[in-house]
Protein backbone atom coordinates (compact mmCIF):
# COMPACT_ATOMS: atom_id res chain seq x y z
CA UNK A 1 0.00 0.00 0.00
CA UNK A 2 1.33 3.40 -0.97
CA UNK A 3 0.47 4.79 2.38
CA UNK A 4 2.82 2.45 4.16
CA UNK A 5 5.71 3.66 2.03
CA UNK A 6 5.39 7.17 3.37
CA UNK A 7 7.48 8.43 6.17
CA UNK A 8 6.15 11.29 8.27
CA UNK A 9 8.70 12.68 10.61
CA UNK A 10 12.09 11.29 11.46
CA UNK A 11 10.87 8.15 13.09
CA UNK A 12 7.53 7.65 14.78
CA UNK A 13 5.67 4.99 12.81
CA UNK A 14 2.09 5.48 11.76
CA UNK A 15 0.74 2.77 14.01
CA UNK A 16 2.74 4.04 16.96
CA UNK A 17 1.41 7.50 16.28
CA UNK A 18 -2.16 6.21 16.17
CA UNK A 19 -1.76 4.69 19.62
CA UNK A 20 -0.09 7.81 20.94
CA UNK A 21 -2.80 10.02 19.45
CA UNK A 22 -5.58 7.93 20.98
CA UNK A 23 -4.01 8.26 24.42
CA UNK A 24 -3.25 11.99 24.25
CA UNK A 25 -5.69 13.84 21.98
CA UNK A 26 -8.71 14.34 24.31
CA UNK A 27 -6.49 15.40 27.21
CA UNK A 28 -4.49 17.79 25.06
CA UNK A 29 -7.68 19.30 23.69
CA UNK A 30 -8.88 19.88 27.26
CA UNK A 31 -5.60 21.54 28.19
CA UNK A 32 -5.75 23.87 25.17
CA UNK A 33 -9.45 24.56 25.70
CA UNK A 34 -9.03 25.56 29.32
CA UNK A 35 -5.90 27.58 28.82
CA UNK A 36 -6.97 29.27 25.59
CA UNK A 37 -10.62 29.74 26.50
CA UNK A 38 -11.87 29.00 23.01
CA UNK A 39 -12.92 25.60 21.58
CA UNK A 40 -12.13 26.68 18.01
CA UNK A 41 -8.67 27.80 19.05
CA UNK A 42 -8.18 24.47 20.81
CA UNK A 43 -9.13 22.67 17.57
CA UNK A 44 -6.61 24.66 15.54
CA UNK A 45 -3.78 24.33 18.00
CA UNK A 46 -4.38 20.63 18.52
CA UNK A 47 -3.79 19.98 14.83
CA UNK A 48 -0.79 22.28 14.65
CA UNK A 49 0.70 20.65 17.72
CA UNK A 50 0.49 17.14 16.30
CA UNK A 51 1.84 18.19 12.90
CA UNK A 52 4.84 19.85 14.50
CA UNK A 53 5.24 16.92 16.83
CA UNK A 54 5.34 14.48 13.91
CA UNK A 55 7.99 16.56 12.22
CA UNK A 56 10.42 16.59 15.12
CA UNK A 57 9.66 13.87 17.64
CA UNK A 58 12.40 11.48 18.62
CA UNK A 59 10.87 8.04 18.14
CA UNK A 60 13.47 6.49 20.41
CA UNK A 61 12.36 8.50 23.42
CA UNK A 62 9.90 7.17 25.99
CA UNK A 63 6.22 7.92 25.65
CA UNK A 64 6.22 10.10 28.73
CA UNK A 65 8.94 12.26 27.18
CA UNK A 66 7.08 12.36 23.87
CA UNK A 67 3.96 13.44 25.69
CA UNK A 68 5.84 16.20 27.50
CA UNK A 69 7.30 17.30 24.18
CA UNK A 70 3.79 17.47 22.68
CA UNK A 71 2.60 19.64 25.58
CA UNK A 72 5.62 21.90 25.17
CA UNK A 73 4.77 22.43 21.51
CA UNK A 74 1.13 23.11 22.38
CA UNK A 75 2.08 25.56 25.13
CA UNK A 76 4.46 27.43 22.82
CA UNK A 77 1.83 27.64 20.09
CA UNK A 78 -0.69 28.99 22.58
CA UNK A 79 1.83 31.55 23.80
CA UNK A 80 2.53 32.60 20.20
CA UNK A 81 -1.17 33.10 19.59
CA UNK A 82 -1.47 35.27 22.66
CA UNK A 83 1.45 37.36 21.52
CA UNK A 84 0.13 37.67 18.00
CA UNK A 85 -3.35 38.66 18.92
CA UNK A 86 -2.32 40.70 21.96
CA UNK A 87 -5.46 39.51 23.60
CA UNK A 88 -4.13 38.14 26.85
CA UNK A 89 -7.62 38.34 28.24
CA UNK A 90 -8.51 35.40 26.06
CA UNK A 91 -6.25 33.33 28.23
CA UNK A 92 -8.12 34.43 31.29
CA UNK A 93 -11.42 33.31 29.90
CA UNK A 94 -10.75 29.62 30.21
CA UNK A 95 -12.67 29.44 33.44
CA UNK A 96 -14.71 32.59 33.06
CA UNK A 97 -16.35 31.51 29.96
CA UNK A 98 -18.63 29.48 28.00
CA UNK A 99 -19.64 26.12 29.33
CA UNK A 100 -21.49 25.43 26.16
CA UNK A 101 -20.68 21.76 26.13
CA UNK A 102 -23.68 21.60 28.45
CA UNK A 103 -25.54 19.02 30.46
CA UNK A 104 -23.53 19.17 33.68
CA UNK A 105 -25.73 21.10 36.01
CA UNK A 106 -24.80 19.07 39.05
CA UNK A 107 -21.33 20.54 39.41
CA UNK A 108 -22.21 24.12 38.49
CA UNK A 109 -21.43 25.63 41.92
CA UNK A 110 -17.96 24.11 41.99
CA UNK A 111 -17.33 25.31 38.46
CA UNK A 112 -18.38 28.83 39.38
CA UNK A 113 -15.97 28.79 42.32
CA UNK A 114 -13.18 27.61 40.07
CA UNK A 115 -14.00 30.25 37.50
CA UNK A 116 -13.62 32.92 40.09
CA UNK A 117 -10.52 31.41 41.65
CA UNK A 118 -8.59 30.80 38.47
CA UNK A 119 -9.54 34.00 36.73
CA UNK A 120 -7.05 35.71 39.01
CA UNK A 121 -4.15 33.53 37.94
CA UNK A 122 -1.96 34.38 34.99
CA UNK A 123 -1.81 31.93 32.06
CA UNK A 124 1.53 30.49 33.13
CA UNK A 125 0.27 29.74 36.62
CA UNK A 126 -2.80 28.03 35.19
CA UNK A 127 -0.64 25.97 32.86
CA UNK A 128 1.58 24.91 35.74
CA UNK A 129 -1.36 23.96 37.95
CA UNK A 130 -2.95 21.96 35.14
CA UNK A 131 0.23 20.14 34.22
CA UNK A 132 0.95 19.30 37.84
CA UNK A 133 -2.46 18.17 39.02
CA UNK A 134 -4.27 17.04 35.89
CA UNK A 135 -1.41 15.62 33.85
CA UNK A 136 0.75 14.57 36.79
CA UNK A 137 4.05 15.98 35.57
CA UNK A 138 6.91 16.57 37.98
CA UNK A 139 8.71 19.89 38.36
CA UNK A 140 11.47 19.06 35.91
CA UNK A 141 8.99 18.12 33.20
CA UNK A 142 6.83 21.18 33.82
CA UNK A 143 9.91 23.39 33.58
CA UNK A 144 10.66 21.91 30.17
CA UNK A 145 7.10 22.33 28.94
CA UNK A 146 6.48 25.87 30.17
CA UNK A 147 10.02 27.16 29.62
CA UNK A 148 11.03 28.18 33.13
CA UNK A 149 13.69 26.97 35.53
CA UNK A 150 12.94 23.91 37.59
CA UNK A 151 13.36 25.86 40.83
CA UNK A 152 10.87 28.45 39.63
CA UNK A 153 8.21 25.81 39.06
CA UNK A 154 8.15 24.98 42.75
CA UNK A 155 7.64 28.63 43.66
CA UNK A 156 5.12 29.34 40.90
CA UNK A 157 3.14 26.23 41.75
CA UNK A 158 3.06 27.15 45.42
CA UNK A 159 1.91 30.71 44.67
CA UNK A 160 -0.72 29.62 42.17
CA UNK A 161 -2.09 27.06 44.59
CA UNK A 162 -2.21 29.58 47.41
CA UNK A 163 -3.97 32.11 45.22
CA UNK A 164 -6.51 29.57 44.02
CA UNK A 165 -7.10 28.28 47.53
CA UNK A 166 -7.60 31.79 48.89
CA UNK A 167 -10.18 32.49 46.26
CA UNK A 168 -11.97 29.23 46.86
CA UNK A 169 -12.03 29.92 50.62
CA UNK A 170 -13.37 33.41 50.02
CA UNK A 171 -16.19 31.98 47.98
CA UNK A 172 -17.04 29.49 50.69
CA UNK A 173 -17.15 32.22 53.34
CA UNK A 174 -19.39 34.35 51.17
CA UNK A 175 -21.83 31.54 50.44
Amino acid at each position, binding site marked *: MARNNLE*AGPGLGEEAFERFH*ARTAPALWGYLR*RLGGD*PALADDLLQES*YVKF*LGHVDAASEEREQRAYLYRIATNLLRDRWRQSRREILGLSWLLGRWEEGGRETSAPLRMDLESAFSRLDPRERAILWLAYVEGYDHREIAGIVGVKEGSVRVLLFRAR*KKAARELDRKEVQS
Partner: protein
Amino acid sequence: MRETPRDRDEELQGEERQIASALRQLAAETRPPHPLPTAGQLWWRAEVGRRLAGKADGRVDQALRPATWGQRAGLAVLLVFFTLQAPALLESLGRRIDLGAPLPLVLAGLLPLAAGLLLGLLTRRT
Protein backbone atom coordinates in the same frame (compact mmCIF):
# COMPACT_ATOMS: atom_id res chain seq x y z
CA MET B 1 6.11 2.53 36.16
CA ARG B 2 4.58 5.90 35.54
CA GLU B 3 3.18 7.65 38.56
CA THR B 4 -0.38 8.74 37.83
CA PRO B 5 -2.09 11.83 39.19
CA ARG B 6 -4.23 9.53 41.32
CA ASP B 7 -1.14 7.96 42.85
CA ARG B 8 0.06 11.39 43.69
CA ASP B 9 -3.15 12.14 45.59
CA GLU B 10 -1.77 9.97 48.37
CA GLU B 11 0.95 12.56 48.92
CA LEU B 12 -1.27 15.62 48.69
CA GLN B 13 -2.57 17.37 51.74
CA GLY B 14 -5.30 19.86 52.54
CA GLU B 15 -5.66 22.67 50.08
CA GLU B 16 -3.40 21.00 47.56
CA ARG B 17 -5.68 18.00 47.47
CA GLN B 18 -8.70 20.29 47.15
CA ILE B 19 -7.21 22.16 44.20
CA ALA B 20 -6.03 18.99 42.50
CA SER B 21 -9.42 17.40 42.88
CA ALA B 22 -11.27 20.43 41.55
CA LEU B 23 -8.94 20.70 38.55
CA ARG B 24 -9.33 17.03 37.71
CA GLN B 25 -13.07 17.34 37.88
CA LEU B 26 -12.85 20.27 35.51
CA ALA B 27 -10.58 18.29 33.18
CA ALA B 28 -12.95 15.33 33.23
CA GLU B 29 -15.80 17.62 32.22
CA THR B 30 -13.82 19.24 29.43
CA ARG B 31 -14.42 17.07 26.43
CA PRO B 32 -14.45 18.08 22.78
CA PRO B 33 -18.02 18.64 21.54
CA HIS B 34 -17.20 17.05 18.19
CA PRO B 35 -14.87 14.29 16.93
CA LEU B 36 -11.24 15.34 16.85
CA PRO B 37 -9.12 14.87 13.70
CA THR B 38 -8.03 11.26 13.41
CA ALA B 39 -4.43 10.15 13.68
CA GLY B 40 -4.50 9.26 9.99
CA GLN B 41 -5.61 12.74 8.98
CA LEU B 42 -2.89 14.36 11.08
CA TRP B 43 -0.30 11.96 9.76
CA TRP B 44 -1.15 12.86 6.17
CA ARG B 45 -1.16 16.56 6.90
CA ALA B 46 2.31 16.28 8.39
CA GLU B 47 3.49 14.21 5.44
CA VAL B 48 2.09 16.63 2.83
CA GLY B 49 3.67 19.57 4.64
CA ARG B 50 7.01 17.82 4.78
CA ARG B 51 6.95 16.94 1.08
CA LEU B 52 5.84 20.40 0.00
CA ALA B 53 8.56 22.00 2.10
CA GLY B 54 11.16 19.67 0.55
CA LYS B 55 9.99 20.44 -3.01
CA ALA B 56 9.80 24.16 -2.37
CA ASP B 57 13.36 24.23 -1.03
CA GLY B 58 14.60 22.35 -4.09
CA ARG B 59 12.81 24.67 -6.50
CA VAL B 60 14.11 27.78 -4.81
CA ASP B 61 17.67 26.45 -4.94
CA GLN B 62 17.28 25.54 -8.58
CA ALA B 63 15.76 28.90 -9.47
CA LEU B 64 18.47 30.83 -7.68
CA ARG B 65 21.40 28.94 -9.12
CA PRO B 66 21.51 30.43 -12.70
CA ALA B 67 20.89 33.90 -11.30
CA THR B 68 23.75 33.51 -8.90
CA TRP B 69 26.06 32.28 -11.64
CA GLY B 70 25.02 35.17 -13.90
CA GLN B 71 25.64 37.69 -11.14
CA ARG B 72 29.09 36.29 -10.45
CA ALA B 73 29.99 36.28 -14.14
CA GLY B 74 28.78 39.87 -14.58
CA LEU B 75 30.74 41.01 -11.58
CA ALA B 76 33.88 39.28 -12.84
CA VAL B 77 33.54 40.89 -16.29
CA LEU B 78 33.11 44.32 -14.73
CA LEU B 79 36.12 43.91 -12.50
CA VAL B 80 38.29 42.75 -15.39
CA PHE B 81 37.08 45.63 -17.55
CA PHE B 82 37.74 48.31 -14.96
CA THR B 83 41.10 46.84 -14.08
CA LEU B 84 42.36 46.62 -17.66
CA GLN B 85 40.52 49.31 -19.57
CA ALA B 86 39.57 52.07 -17.21
CA PRO B 87 42.91 53.95 -17.20
CA ALA B 88 43.07 54.02 -21.01
CA LEU B 89 39.40 55.08 -21.28
CA LEU B 90 39.71 57.86 -18.74
CA GLU B 91 42.88 59.12 -20.39
CA SER B 92 41.17 59.23 -23.78
CA LEU B 93 38.11 61.02 -22.33
CA GLY B 94 40.32 63.51 -20.52
CA ARG B 95 41.90 64.56 -23.78
CA ARG B 96 38.57 65.22 -25.53
CA ILE B 97 36.52 66.77 -22.72
CA ASP B 98 37.22 69.93 -20.81
CA LEU B 99 37.27 68.53 -17.29
CA GLY B 100 36.54 71.95 -15.76
CA ALA B 101 33.02 72.15 -17.36
CA PRO B 102 29.95 71.51 -15.14
CA LEU B 103 28.61 68.44 -16.99
CA PRO B 104 31.76 66.32 -16.67
CA LEU B 105 31.94 67.25 -13.01
CA VAL B 106 28.37 66.10 -12.40
CA LEU B 107 29.00 62.92 -14.34
CA ALA B 108 32.16 62.28 -12.39
CA GLY B 109 30.17 62.66 -9.18
CA LEU B 110 27.43 60.30 -10.35
CA LEU B 111 29.83 57.65 -11.60
CA PRO B 112 30.71 56.19 -8.17
CA LEU B 113 27.01 56.18 -7.23
CA ALA B 114 26.10 54.31 -10.41
CA ALA B 115 28.92 51.86 -9.89
CA GLY B 116 27.79 51.27 -6.32
CA LEU B 117 24.19 50.66 -7.38
CA LEU B 118 25.29 48.25 -10.07
CA LEU B 119 27.45 46.31 -7.67
CA GLY B 120 24.60 46.23 -5.15
CA LEU B 121 22.22 44.80 -7.75
CA LEU B 122 24.72 42.22 -8.88
CA THR B 123 25.60 40.98 -5.44
CA ARG B 124 21.99 40.78 -4.23
CA ARG B 125 20.85 37.16 -3.95
CA THR B 126 17.15 37.58 -4.73
